[in-house]
């Protein structure tokens, strides 16, 4: 019996290691790629380490692309994403609280509409959003992206689940009986307990904003306003390693190592947020399950 348990455990660990290689391998490759030159990437074993010198050269090549356009893209991504996230949290947390813990006519309808809107394809809304933004003269400004990014129904739904399952209802009831106004109840009971859900909503909103392709492509006027997500395919198209016609004109600086480095820059912020927010994220994600 014990031996069989032991055997199962070994097999499980082996399987898990295989999958760990699957999930982690590409990331290792990505991190090592900028340390090699384009031909080294092709000719050497995939997970070989190049040199720090090459890494520096790759970085320089990438940043010199059209006058540190990549850094501009990074800045844009940060502005759009953080701005959108701030707005999303500002709206979603109170809304989730209101849906979960207060009464008002239309509460259930609001919830239903929220669920439906989550399924509407983003493509369908791009033109209407563009026309709306144009009506208020916001096209080409950061607001044309921050405002739509701030609309985060999934965040509202998460907050709703969180508040309705983690805040003891008796507590709220008692506070109300004690005479605290609704705002007081929210401020003194819900908000202090809301750190995990704020972190969770902020995280999901940030990742969604950072990875959004469609809307920024439509709402911006030129290269210098793109976020990184839209810029990456542009880089791809101007790389002779991928698109041979880009070799004409002699301006090509983007080869495979530079592409890999651009990708690293594109994911670094989200990755950092992932790492730091790990614990709070997991706590928040599980909050809904503990009350089942």
């Amino acid at each position, binding site marked *: 019996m014990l031996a069989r348990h032991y055997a199962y455990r070994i097999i499980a660990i082996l399987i898990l290691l295989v999958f760990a290689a699957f999930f982690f391998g590409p990331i290792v490759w990505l991190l090592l790629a900028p340390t090699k030159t384009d031909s080294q990437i092709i000719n050497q074993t995939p997970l070989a380490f190049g040199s720090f010198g090459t890494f520096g050269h790759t970085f320089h090549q990438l940043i010199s692309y059209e006058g540190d356009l990549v850094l501009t893209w990074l800045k844009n991504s940060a502005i759009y994403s953080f701005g959108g996230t*701030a707005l999303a949290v500002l709206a979603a947390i109170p809304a989730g609280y209101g849906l979960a813990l207060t009464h008002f006519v239309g509460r259930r309808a609001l919830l239903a509409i929220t669920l439906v809107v989550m399924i509407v394809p983003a493509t369908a809304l791009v033109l209407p959003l563009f026309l709306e933004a144009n009506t208020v003269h916001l096209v080409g400004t*950061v607001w044309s992206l921050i405002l739509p990014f701030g609309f985060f129904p999934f965040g509202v739904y998460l907050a709703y689940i969180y508040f309705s399952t983690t805040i003891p209802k008796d507590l709220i009831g008692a506070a109300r009986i004690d005479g605290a106004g609704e705002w007081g109840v929210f*401020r003194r009971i819900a908000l202090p307990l809301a750190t995990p859900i704020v972190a969770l909503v902020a995280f999901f909103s940030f990742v969604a904003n950072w990875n959004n392709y469609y809307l920024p492509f439509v709402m911006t006027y030129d290269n210098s*306003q793109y976020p990184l997500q839209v810029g990456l395919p542009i880089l791809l198209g101007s790389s*002779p390693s991928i698109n041979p016609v880009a070799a004409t*004109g002699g*301006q090509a600086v983007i080869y495979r190592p530079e592409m890999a480095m651009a990708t690293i820059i594109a994911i670094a912020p989200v990755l950092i947020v992932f790492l730091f927010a790990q614990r709070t994220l997991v706590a928040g994600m599980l909050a809904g399950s503990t009350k089942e």
Partner: protein
Amino acid sequence: MKSFFNLESWRGRSLRNRVALATVVVAGLALAVPGASTATTKSSSKPLIVWIDTSRIPYEQAYMKANPGANIKWVIYNGNENGTGVLQSKFALWNRIGWPSVAPDVMFDSQNYDAVQLGTAPYNDLLNLSKYVPASVLKGYAGHSMSACTTPSGKIVCLRNDTAADVLWVNQGLYTKFFGKAPVPTTWSGIVADGQMLKKSHPGYTVGDIGDEFDDDFIYWGNGCPLDKVVGANTVEIDPTNLACTKINNLLDNSGLEGNAITTTYVFAAGGFPAAKVVMMVGPLWYGTAVFENGKKAPDGVPNGTMAAYPPPLSVLGQPITGALGGGLWLVSSHSSQPAAAAALAEYMSTSPKVQAVGVDAGLPDYTPDQAAYVGAFGSVFANPVTSGKAWETAAAEVWNGWGPTPWSTDAAWASTVVPGVTATPPSTLGKQMNSFALALANDARLAGWTVKSTSKCINSFGGSGC
């Protein structure tokens, strides 16, 4: 019961929350600046806005050197590359809301087939240049190349920048070594014959390739096979059963060279077929600098003075025509507030020797008066520079005008139907993939709302049921 109204701690916490929120909001409001960050020239009159891609930066520099202080705002974009449709999407949106002041007056477009689409319904966004550019200039472009700029109703909606006509590239040293003083082939059968000799005696070398994403431009366009032939307004002929198509397919498929002396590996970027082992290859003019160039630019290049350009082979039906791959366009917006100035700028970029002579990598000018100077600038880059230059000029005039312009990319259809087949193990043949290629083209045409004319049962059936 624990008191949850411990004012000190809750007030402190919520105050911190409030301050944090307020900071974010204030920071957000401070960000309310319009997004465009490219510097504008300081002038009271509105600058001309020109969109170019990175490869045209030397053009911008040449222009500003020749016209210092010109009131122009140069904006870099991706050149509408590879079907990204940047111009199409921007025009579609602007047509609905009105063209903003940041819209470009002049644009460089790297896709040859865009102009007629953007200059006709539903877009209709390009200026009719026949009113602004003298007829003598319009006649100065190589061969029939301006057909890509002429709408069915006769409007001229673009000016050609460079021509990317296909020539026969030959590695002079290798050729002399293997074939001695024999003249370079002038037909596709000649190329195949040379390839068969190489396969027997000197394996490992190639005389061509069919595995790249755009070989249809050499193989079908260059042989007059009607797969993209505009025969009327919004009407295209797609006829894979045409004699030209079947003849070239049979020649290549029966040569015994596919996968061997006709490689199915791409020749381009590092990792493909080594450029140094190419004895000859039909390819566009700019292969010279992009594929075969000196080792310090491309990882697998060949030294200067190795490659020579020869006139492209006659088509399988004996016609002196050739295909092309690339070459850009200069477009002028019909919504420009300064149409005359914009048209003049486009004409200058397209025809001025100062601009067109820039750099060996940019490609042969399509405007013939500029070609000689450009060719002369090559010096030692190519073997036989004089004959190479002549070959280029000949090829530029021979580009067949029976291929496009249609608002879809034939290369994309080729890449999704033929390339997977011929690069597979075991490889398929061109003949076997022909119907699916033609069908993909027909589907693209029908998606765009065009009528397809064909004698092929396969193309005329719905959903390819007759294939």
